[in-house]
């Protein structure tokens, strides 16, 4: 069984308003060195057998929206 990790992140050009809120909270806690926080998703898949092409297809068809997100597969 292969465990595959898919990281889905908002495109850098888009405002991540949730990440901005978290950054504000960390700055309130005194972490003044923090410039930005961005929140993404980690999706763990278990597949057998593993095919990178098919996992990529899963990302393109459902797991990520190319209009707003990028993804990275870690097998």
């Amino acid at each position, binding site marked *: 069984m292969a465990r595959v990790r898919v990281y889905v992140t908002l495109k850098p050009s888009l405002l991540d*308003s949730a990440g901005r809120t978290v950054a504000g909270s960390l700055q309130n806690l005194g972490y003044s060195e923090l410039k930005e926080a961005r929140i993404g998703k980690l999706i763990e898949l278990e597949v057998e057998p593993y095919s990178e092409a098919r996992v990529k297809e899963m990302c393109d068809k459902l797991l990520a929206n190319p*209009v707003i997100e990028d993804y990275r597969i870690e097998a």
Partner: protein
Amino acid sequence: MKVAVLRFPGSNCDQDAFHALRDDLGIGADYVWHQDTSLAGFDAVFVPGGFSYGDYLRCGAMASRAPIMAEVQRFAQEGRPVIGACNGFQILCEAGLLPGALLLNAEQKFICKDVYLRAENRDSLWTRGVEGVLRIPIAHGEGRYVVDDETLRRLEGEGRVAFRYVTSDGERADWANSNGSVDAIAGVLNEKGNVLGLMPHPERATRKLLGSTDGLNILKGLKLVAANL
């Protein structure tokens, strides 16, 4: 004339839409379950708001891949009327029937209030009956419309921006664009103009008791369609 009101697990504006269409607009409507595969006998589709599939992954992502959506794709390509409000707009974007996507509101908060809308297009079946500024409620956490610059220019050039958030006087103002949408866009049309997606809820503004009847200005496009059937 019969409108299909789609139902996904988590839809919660389906009954509002059904009653607005049947009781206030006076046209036929019936529910269609997301697992169904046919729209036979229907003349238009209403994709209602709510939290389809719990809004998991992305709002509208799973709903846009539900079995009924292949039929909605075909329906839209045939030029027949399709409207999606709120989660319905998110679903139509995720389905690729409309460009762009909806992100978390710029100020993070869920916003539930009346907003003012200006129709920017007067040619489509959904917007040709719209006069003046409309007051219609919004109720969403993820309604910030985004689209890439090139597509935005194309939408503007082709008159496919259907509605913008404005002040009660119909003027643009940053504060009137409460979710932070690009260019204050509240609703967009597809290329043919038969598919409309918008974050505001026209089905919640269809009788005096609800505080506004302005939603009928949008939905009455369906009556014109009915007259031509």
